[in-house]
């Protein structure tokens, strides 16, 4: 088990090197004038050259890459051209917001999607099943940013039940940072009122993000439940008189969930990279908004940094899923 984790971690290294190479190539080889943009419209030729020299952008690209990797080994992700702040510090500040959002969305998707998939599989080919199948395809087809807009319009502007966006209003004093997740940090601080406020801010973006993975997980769970229900061991369990409820909740559910797990891992990575749109709609101060601002001003260091961190998290998420798979399915445990 430990060997398995270690081997996977070692396999991470070439992935990370490849990631930096590809992103670096894109950042440097594509046309565009990031330095000119950063220096401002009124900058003279000398000022631009000075800025380029300051950031080492006048050197050949392989030297730049070597410098970058050298910094990376010391945990330095470079410096933003625009804000002149270290990228690593920025990412550390914005990552918890994105993670909180993605984890909340995935939790909703799993907690609702898996039971729904199980139930629709058991009721397969009856009207609740048909209705939920159509709804699921609809949910996958719904643009997250349009859904977010509709939620805002409905719950924030007309009904005024929930706040329009952001993580916490300025008037609420933020809790001391422990995990960076406001919902958890407020609980640790024992500030229930602030917790409630944070939760209300989290609700709409998390729901907008969760709909599509929820539908996908439900469909996967339904398909794998149907497959498991056709397995011989389910027939044996029925033939030997096990109650139907026990067969489905114990014998079928566990095997079906293990088939659905892979999708959950893939979706987790996909959501991490796709928070941009929802963060834009809800003004959620996460990595997506940060990357968008950097991209628009062609400030490439933050973009490379964000891609690197998300790629890393994606690989880690899949490692965790593989481990969970081993726990649920004893047959693959030691292989």
């Amino acid at each position, binding site marked *: 088990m430990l060997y398995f984790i270690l081997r996977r971690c070692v396999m991470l290294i070439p992935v990370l090197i*490849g990631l930096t190479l590809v992103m670096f190539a894109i950042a440097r080889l594509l046309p565009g004038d990031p330095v000119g943009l950063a220096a401002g419209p009124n900058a003279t030729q000398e000022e631009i050259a000075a800025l380029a020299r300051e950031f080492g952008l006048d050197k050949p690209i392989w030297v730049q890459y070597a410098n970058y990797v050298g910094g990376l080994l010391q945990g330095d992700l470079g410096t933003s051209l625009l804000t002149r702040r270290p990228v690593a510090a920025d990412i550390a500040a914005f990552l918890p917001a994105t993670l909180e959002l993605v984890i909340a969305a995935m939790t909703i998707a799993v907690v609702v999607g898996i039971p729904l998939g199980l139930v629709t599989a058991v009721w397969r080919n009856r009207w609740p099943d048909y209705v939920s199948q159509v709804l699921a*395809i609809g949910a996958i*087809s719904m*643009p997250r*940013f349009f859904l977010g807009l509709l939620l805002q319009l409905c719950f924030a502007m007309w009904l005024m039940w929930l706040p329009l966006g952001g993580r916490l209003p300025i008037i609420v004093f933020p809790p001391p940072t422990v995990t960076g997740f406001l919902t958890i940090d407020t609980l640790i601080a024992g500030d229930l009122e602030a917790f409630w406020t944070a939760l209300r801010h989290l609700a709409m973006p998390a729901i907008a993000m969760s709909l599509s993975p929820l539908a996908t997980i439900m469909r996967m769970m339904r*398909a794998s439940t149907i497959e498991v229900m056709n397995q011989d061991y389910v027939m044996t369990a029925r033939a030997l008189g096990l109650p139907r409820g026990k067969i489905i909740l114990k014998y079928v559910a566990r095997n079906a969930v293990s088939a659905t797990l892979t999708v959950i891992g893939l979706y987790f990575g996909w959501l991490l990279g796709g928070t*941009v*749109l929802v963060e834009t709609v809800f003004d959620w101060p996460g990595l997506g908004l940060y990357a968008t601002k950097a991209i*628009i001003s062609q400030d490439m260091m933050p973009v490379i940094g964000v891609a690197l961190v998300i*790629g890393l998290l994606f690989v880690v998420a899949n490692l965790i899923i593989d481990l969970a798979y081993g726990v649920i399915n004893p047959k693959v445990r030691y292989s």
Partner: protein
Amino acid sequence: MTEIAETPPIEMLSTGNDRWRRALFRFRQSKLSMLGAAMVAVVLFFTLFGTVLAPYPEHVAGGVATADRFLPPSAAHPFGTNELGQDVLSLVMAGTTVSVLAGFGVVLIGTVIGTLVGGIAGFVGSWTDEVLMRLTDLTLTIPGLILAMAIAAALGPGFTNMVIAISLSWWPGYARLVRGEVLAAREEVYVTAARAIGASPARILFRHILPNTVSPIIVKMSLDMGFAILTVAGLGFIGIGVRPPTPEWGTLLSLSRAYMPDYWWTAMAPGMAMFLAVFGFNLLGDGLRDILDPKARR
């Protein structure tokens, strides 16, 4: 040996022709697939004729009518007018062209690159396979939307740049799919036969192997169409991609955000158009997968 001879079950004895009849039968049986096909037909119709049929072609071309700003939905303007007095319906109808063509372009380029990479990797094997597939896995790890945004921003605004930017993050799925299919097909008897009569490797790949991977590719393309349209609209929504006055659904939606909640109708038509177009493609793709991809059949 005292076994009684096992005779094949009746079903296996039916002919190939029968199989196609069954497939069509199943597709027709599925009302959702038919609905999806109909919706896609409507979307394609607007892709071709949306600009021509728009009730206010001058608004599509960029004309403004400041006297008619923010009119609520009415008979003259079924979806109201926007901040420039333009007819929202006309803009959305014309926007179909950009969204669907861009989506189609992305899927097509992604398929071509992916098929080449996956086909060569699976067919040549050894270290070529290793290198190409590592590259594929690597691209899969990079968050697609951020990659597309970065490339699009660097290339500058415009339809072609946007399509290229998204395509560059789109091909790995196809590469994996095609490689798997090619690896399976390589072992088939007809390929061995073609090799035995001395066909060239290129001929074997393009004439004998790739044609047999067509149906899973078509299934994936139809399922991906909706997702590609969503991605195109997403870039537009963020402000990277096609620039106004060219009407594009994501851009239209993004512009309308500033006028919520009083002028909510400016958001409804582009948002619903996106949803319905994607819904149609997803229903169709789902139906196609059920009949063309026996492995995924439930």
